[in-house]
């Protein structure tokens, strides 16, 4: 489908109409200046410039708690897998979060397919909303190559001044545009305006990382003994917030929960966090990452080295949530730059 | 039974630990005492030196059942020390929360602690067999009240949102209106409750005493009011509470002199009913009528029935409060208030009677003095006097039956002994 134009004032109706066939999740201001994704029935354009939500929209694909199995132990053992999913639309997702979902797609499809995630993913339509300027001080999407995006959404809307220039990426996207909103085909003039705005924005998103992002695995490979981990060890509270708010963290715990009848129950998974103390503790008493510094080092390596090496893309999408949420101001960019600088200084000395 | 001795240890189905000692020789009562064996907890000392904003955290832990009332009263005392008057919205939210606590506490007491006595069983678990529907009704009503507490206060036991001058978080108007609907839908269950308690056979016994409660001209006083005595009808300011309360405390003590004719008084549902009947919601009055509770009433066992009446009242009152809150719209009122040097007294009706907190603060807001007077402590002397007058009438019964009757009377007061322990002075009355 050709690019289309949707008027700002029609977005609310769009949201509303989508509810005929989907649950619509969009952004809501929970408290002044703090946003969350929640079920919405209209879109208010005051939210167009929202700062990243407290939790990323991954919670609708990989919820905080999720049932995997149901079982009966009496009269005899029976097990059923449980996959809960409903047709849903994520409305107004930012590029960083779309990238985040794209990375989860990789994680949950490669090696072994996770049907609990994939079924929800298949039932989800993503309506993106592009960013023309950094949404807040912690954003560093451009630095990790996650500002520009041309995949991972069904439609993407860009405000080109009162009207949204809309790229339709998938057949499902085309279907909802045709069915649920008033639109016109974008003309030459609008396309040009759109392209110009896109290229103009570049200057506003500066590169905060003091190297090419693709170099990062190299820096991190040699950073196991970097003094930064010692410093963070003293500062980090081990509270796990950076993990919980991150759009690309996906670790989980699995546990059984019996019903009160004690003859049936379910197996569930729940978000876990690699910065928590017993994440890597085993029954023999060892804890393979026993200090907060080591655990944080692991987390940073996952974003900029381990997973990045395996999948050839940064696993930090630049939303800045971890920096914002860290009570003791551990800043992802500062930390990455410290690793780079310490490395360079070491080399100079050598 | 002319000679009779009973040590009723750890009276059950009440909150806190109390024992009753009765010694009857030759048909005459030689000893009759309600000992409080609950450990004293020294709250007045615990609060000392703490910052005014923390006090409610501490006082709430005096009692898990009336945590809302303790928190409210504490905050009122602090606000009065700070010379701060909360907004209408805050007061209405507090009243709503208090109504919810009344419903929850009364229902708990009525269905779970008092009712088993009438069914000759030791606990609500024993009632499940023959009266499952009644038990479940009690549970549903209690859940309703608990959830209303949670909506307004965060949780029922040790509420979170009650703050000096405000609520840390307001309920959403939508949540309130949803809840209103639930209360309205539960009116039937309330009617059933009235029928249920109407059919229970309340023992006949009368002993007129002095009834003390808060009072207000234009509402059934729970949240605030002047202190009223049924004897004189006189109303005094809460800040002068010691004139009223001390007066009767000292009558128990051999060391001090009585200033009043009476040596005990009653607080609680029946006292409020007797003092403030006019202000009851019409529906509550109707239910009183239906259950045979006439105004005034001097049968302490009827305290249970007065509790049912109050529950009906609180149901209706909650609905009105929710309507008011929604129509006025809820504003965020969160703010810092104080510190400031001062003395303040707060008085609130707890489900089981009038509660007083007094605090003195220094200029940095640290507590320099605290005094808490708890309803059950005020009732203890009256319970003993009731027992003194009822025991002689029971002496023709078997010991076990006597004990049941005595425990029932104590339970009718809905005593919360763990709250009361800081007023241990009562223990020495009859020594």
């Amino acid at each position: 489908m050709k690019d289309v134009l949707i008027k700002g004032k029609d977005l609310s109706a769009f949201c509303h109409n989508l509810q005929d066939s989907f649950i619509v999740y969009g952004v809501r201001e929970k408290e002044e200046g703090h946003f969350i994704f929640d079920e919405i029935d209209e879109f208010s354009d005051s939210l167009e410039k929202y700062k990243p939500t407290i939790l990323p929209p991954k919670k609708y694909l990989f919820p905080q708690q999720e049932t995997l199995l149901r079982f009966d132990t009496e009269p005899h053992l029976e097990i059923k897998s449980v996959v809960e999913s409903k047709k849903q639309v994520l409305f107004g997702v930012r590029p960083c979060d779309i990238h985040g979902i794209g990375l989860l797609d990789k994680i949950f499809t490669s090696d072994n397919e996770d049907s609990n995630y994939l079924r929800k993913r298949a039932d989800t339509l993503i309506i993106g909303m592009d960013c023309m300027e950094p949404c807040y001080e912690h954003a560093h999407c451009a630095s990790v190559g996650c500002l520009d995006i041309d995949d991972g959404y069904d439609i993407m809307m860009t405000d080109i001044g009162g009207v949204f220039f809309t790229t339709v990426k998938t057949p499902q996207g085309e279907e909802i545009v045709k069915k649920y909103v008033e639109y016109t085909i974008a003309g030459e003039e609008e396309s040009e305006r759109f392209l110009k705005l896109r290229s103009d924005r570049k200057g506003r998103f500066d590169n905060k990382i003091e190297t090419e992002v693709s170099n990062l695995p190299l820096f991190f490979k040699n950073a196991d003994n970097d003094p930064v981990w010692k410093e963070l060890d003293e500062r980090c509270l081990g509270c796990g917030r950076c993990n919980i708010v991150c759009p690309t963290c996906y670790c989980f715990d699995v546990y059984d929960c019996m019903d009160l009848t004690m003859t049936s129950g379910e197996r569930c998974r729940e978000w876990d966090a690699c910065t928590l103390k017993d994440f890597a503790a085993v029954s023999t008493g060892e804890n393979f990452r026993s200090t907060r510094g080591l655990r944080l080092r692991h987390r940073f390596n996952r974003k900029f080295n381990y997973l990045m090496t395996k999948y050839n893309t940064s696993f930090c999408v630049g939303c800045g949530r971890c920096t914002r949420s860290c009570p003791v101001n551990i800043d992802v960019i500062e930390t990455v730059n410290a690793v780079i600088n310490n490395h360079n200084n070491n080399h100079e000395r050598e | 039974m002319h000679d009779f001795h009973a040590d009723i240890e750890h009276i059950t189905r009440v909150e806190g630990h109390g024992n009753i000692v009765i010694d009857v020789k030759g048909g005459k009562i030689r000893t009759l005492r309600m000992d409080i064996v609950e450990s004293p907890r020294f709250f007045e000392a615990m609060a000392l030196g703490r910052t005014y904003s923390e006090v409610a955290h501490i006082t709430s832990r005096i009692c898990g059942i009336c945590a809302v009332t303790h928190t409210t009263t504490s905050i009122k005392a602090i606000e009065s020390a700070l010379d701060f008057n909360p907004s209408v919205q805050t007061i209405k939210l507090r009243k709503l929360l208090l109504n919810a606590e009344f419903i929850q506490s009364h229902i708990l007491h009525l269905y779970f602690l008092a009712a088993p006595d009438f069914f000759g069983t030791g606990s609500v678990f024993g009632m499940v067999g023959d009266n499952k529907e009644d038990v479940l009704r009690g549970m549903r009503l209690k859940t309703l009240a608990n959830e209303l507490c949670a909506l307004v206060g965060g949780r029922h036991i040790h509420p979170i949102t009650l703050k000096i001058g405000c609520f840390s978080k307001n309920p959403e108007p939508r949540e309130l209106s949803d809840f209103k609907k639930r209360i309205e839908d539960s009116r039937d269950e309330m009617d059933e409750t009235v029928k249920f308690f109407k059919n229970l056979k309340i023992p006949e016994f009368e002993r007129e005493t002095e009834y003390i409660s808060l009072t207000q001209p234009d509402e059934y006083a729970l949240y605030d009011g002047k202190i009223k005595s049924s004897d004189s009808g006189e109303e005094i300011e809460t800040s002068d509470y010691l004139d009223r309360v001390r007066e009767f405390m000292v009558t128990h003590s051999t060391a001090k002199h009585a200033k009043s004719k009476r040596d005990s008084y009653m607080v609680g549902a029946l006292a409020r009913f007797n003092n403030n009947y006019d202000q009851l919601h019409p529906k509550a009055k109707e239910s009183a009528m239906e259950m045979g509770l006439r105004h005034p009433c001097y049968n302490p066992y009827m305290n249970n029935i007065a509790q049912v009446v109050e529950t009906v009242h609180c149901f209706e009152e909650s609905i009105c409060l929710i309507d008011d809150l929604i129509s006025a719209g809820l504003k965020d009122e969160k703010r810092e208030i104080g510190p400031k040097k001062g003395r303040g007294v707060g008085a609130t009706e707890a489900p089981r009677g009038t509660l007083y907190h007094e605090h003195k603060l220094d200029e940095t807001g640290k507590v320099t003095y605290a005094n808490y007077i708890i309803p059950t402590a005020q009732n203890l002397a009256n319970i003993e006097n009731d027992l003194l007058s009822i025991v002689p009438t029971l002496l023709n019964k078997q010991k076990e039956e006597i004990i049941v009757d005595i425990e029932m009377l104590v339970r009718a007061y809905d005593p919360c002994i763990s709250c009361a322990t800081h007023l241990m002075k009562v223990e020495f009355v009859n020594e």
Partner: protein
Amino acid sequence: MKENNSLFLPEIAEVVSTRQLTEMERYIELKIKDTREFNFNPGQFLQLSVFGIGEAPISISSSPFNRETIGLCVRRVGDVTSALHKLEVGACLGVRGPLGNGFPVEKMKNKDIVFVAGGLGIAPLRSLIQYVIERRDDFARITILYGAKNPGEILFADELECWKQRKDIEVLVTVDKPDENWAGKSGVITRLIPHLDLEPSRTYAVVVGPPVMYKYVLLELQIKQIPEDNIIMSLERRMKCGVGKCGHCQINGIYVCLDGPEFSYHTLKFLSEAI
């Protein structure tokens, strides 16, 4: 999507026999209910479920040539393992697997093999040993070193004895703390290595034991100049899913469940958190 093929859905298996090996260890033999043939490589593991309690990764301890039943050796350390100890014959439990890759048996063919098992480490090794014995001609010299804390904790003592009887296998057993009836060797397992006569280029050392053991055994093997690629170790990590998702068993860039649980020392050397 094949939902009933969910990654997390176990098959039902039945306990067909059990044997208490020591106070802490129990041998459990299972049969998958819908009797499909059960193929696996030595060194692979299962996720065992006791429903209501949870799931735990347990290595397969029986011979891969036995396709009928699966043998497991379970040490009682926590919830699931204790529940497994309580299962009686006929009880049902859940099984996912086989998971992981197992030992690189193909590469080991025609080589001398030294097994170094510490304590429970014999559990996964037993499967490999049985494989090697079954295919005895495919392998050159075979040496089994086994160390236990004390004589009472020796696992599969009868089998060790059988293997010892064979001319074509050398078996050395040592205990850290001997008692008065113990006639064998004493001292930690590392002390057995210096006495071995090894030809480094054609030797594979397969080491499985508690994490503390690895460091010292590696030192000895390095003295013997065994190539890093030929030292194979099996790692225990916390593991929730066993299928490369939950993140718990991650060591630097690798997942123990997906990439292991057996690794060559060459691989592990570069992983700062591995040993």
